[in-house]
């Protein structure tokens, strides 16, 4: 399967292990519950370990350990699921996580919002391909408000513009 990382289509390196599948080899994600229970047993594991967050999972349990994680995957199991946007924002802005945040079950109509909140990798839902997802990023390029993307608040941008205009006006008089 192909995924999108930083807007580029790439081969997927990760597998997402159900709780009863053993951790044997390669880069794997495990559920938050399993990771809390077993994390010490992963010391010395040959591949990378990532954690999967369900929409209802609280970040608090994970926060002290985010630096060491290879990936945090957010599950979007429904078209209308919205908690992952806040989870991503908080992981980036509040907890300083700089590794990959991956949306599982991404849809073309969501990736623009997801990316702005700090999600940088996207695994498409079964009905869409990575190529189709790419079409969703730039459908609307005008942005009014900052999120993780640090777009300046629209009123600041305009206020700055007005000041620049005034300065220009004054110097030309």
């Amino acid at each position, binding site marked *: 399967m192909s995924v999108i990382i930083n807007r580029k289509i790439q081969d997927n390196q990760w597998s997402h292990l159900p709780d009863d599948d053993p951790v044997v080899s390669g880069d794997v994600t495990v559920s938050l519950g399993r990771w809390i229970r077993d994390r010490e047993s992963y010391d010395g594991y040959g591949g990378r370990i990532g954690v999967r967050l369900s929409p209802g999972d609280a970040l608090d349990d994970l926060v002290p350990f985010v630096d060491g994680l290879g990936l945090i995957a957010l599950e979007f199991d429904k*078209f209308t699921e919205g908690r992952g*946007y*806040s989870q991503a924002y908080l992981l980036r802005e509040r907890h300083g996580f700089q590794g990959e945040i991956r949306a599982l079950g991404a849809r073309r109509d969501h990736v623009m919002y997801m990316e*702005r909140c700090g999600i940088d990798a996207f695994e498409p839902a079964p009905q869409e391909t990575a190529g189709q997802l790419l079409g969703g990023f730039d*459908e*609307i*390029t005008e942005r*009014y408000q*900052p999120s993780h993307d640090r777009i300046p*608040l629209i009123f600041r941008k305009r206020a700055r513009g007005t000041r620049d205009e005034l300065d220009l006006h004054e110097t030309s008089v």
Partner: protein
Amino acid sequence: MSELKSRMTAVAMYQYDDIDRSLVNQRVAQFRGQVDRYLNGELTDDEFKQLRLRNGLYLQRHAHMLRVAIPYGLLSSGQMRTLGRISEKYDHGYGHFTTRQNIQYNWPELKDVPDILQELADVDMHAIQTSGNCIRNVTSDHLAGVAKDEIEDPRPYCEIIRQWSSLHPEFSWLPRKFKIAVTGGERDRAAIKFHDIGLRVVTDEQREPGFEVWVGGGMGRTPVVGKLIRGFLPRRHLLSYLEAILRIYNLLGRRDNLHKARIKILVNAVGIDEFHGQVEREWQNMLAAGESLEIGPAEVETVARHFRDDTPPDGGERASDSSRADRWMLDTRFADWHRHNTLEHKNPGYRIVMISLKGPGVAPGDIRSSQMYAVADIAERFSRDEIRSTHEQNLVLAYVKQADIVEVWRELDKHGLATPNIDTLNDMICCPGLDFCSLANAGTINIARQINEKFDRLDRLYGIGEVKLKMSGCMNACGHHDVGHIGILGVDKRGQEWYQITLGGRADDAAAIGKRLGPSLPGEAVADAIERIINVYIGRRKEGERFIDTYARLGIQPFKDQVYVSHHKSKDSRQSVVASA
């Protein structure tokens, strides 16, 4: 410089810049693509539903319904003409103003909707976030900027919230819809305690501007009066505080049950103190990180300057001349209209004109395209090119010079827009009901008509005085029945349409939810029951007492006794409207 000049002559409302215009155009193109993908089978019904809702498009009983945003109810004449043209070209020649100051079309074809949205975008309008589980159109006081009791014009803050919340990356997929209202008056005319977030413009002791913040109010299945979460929020922190509330709600609001997903349920479940604590912690974290959402005077000014009132207080030469109106007072039709449909303006040269959309035989809030054009023309000639819609489903011309008032009345009257019934029993709020809406349990328009017919004499209506009658076809409460002095709720009783009456609701500063009068009534008994309720009031009111005051003094029992004549009091149960129906 020429741009500055044109701005000064433009309507005193927010004027789009290139960014705003580009955004609505991109949104239209995006939706056009989504419609194509749906028709090609790339999107399922359920998926497309979520996308169309966020562009105002519902699928209703007979057809699609398109809800167009009128931000805080403010329109220019040009925009009104476009609304009229759309109703003729794509609909059945009329539109319906809603209780959230928007307009709805009941008959558009799906294939036409992208074109309709483009026509709207061409006049700086859109249907973004008028539906779906996201932050909805911000509503406000329809007398903003012209009310005598105003502390500050709330509309710049409405517009700031509109832009901040439009296509918000984090809050576009909330547990449930989210409604924000802002008032700037001493009297609350925006029902802020019945919104997910209600804001009142206030100043602190140092005269610093800010807001009182209310949270978790709402109507519907679980009507709740909002709770004060912050007595004073400095103005510069408006957006960060809203964002903190939204973030807590987005993460913790219930998503397993549609009926328990509004923020009011979360606030009630954890308690206002705990909710307040969580919001404050989140907010403090945001402030500590450097507040990217801060709005200082320069930022506010980029929006506020659009709303500035540059009219001379006396309206200019001879504006206050009311001699013509005084002579016309001999005409009782004009005098009735002047007394009931016009209000005092903050400036003596002007009056505020209310246009009733509750004429006889018309569904409340409905307006024909010819009337839309007429209102646009009248506003252009006499009221600074500006029209407002109200949450009571009427329109307002806010800047009519005293000297022009007779002419405005004659023009309105010509088009059936001078029904002199503002704030009377017949000025009722009403959702579209079972005739149009697939959620409704019962019809509302037929009941409204029965009540209209029962109280068809103006002298009788005027004798009754102010009564807020509000009716919804189901408990989603689009007709705000919970806060009607008299509320009527359509219910389904074994497949039959029945109606539950409530008394004593109010959306003003003394916010209260109406109390159930008794068992529900069949449709044909509703108008009779209203008449009995009114008769109790007339019989027992004290001098100068409004219906709601008499109710507050007497309680519900006397009204109940008259509507449901109990068996032990009377052997002849036909006296009871229940039995007579």
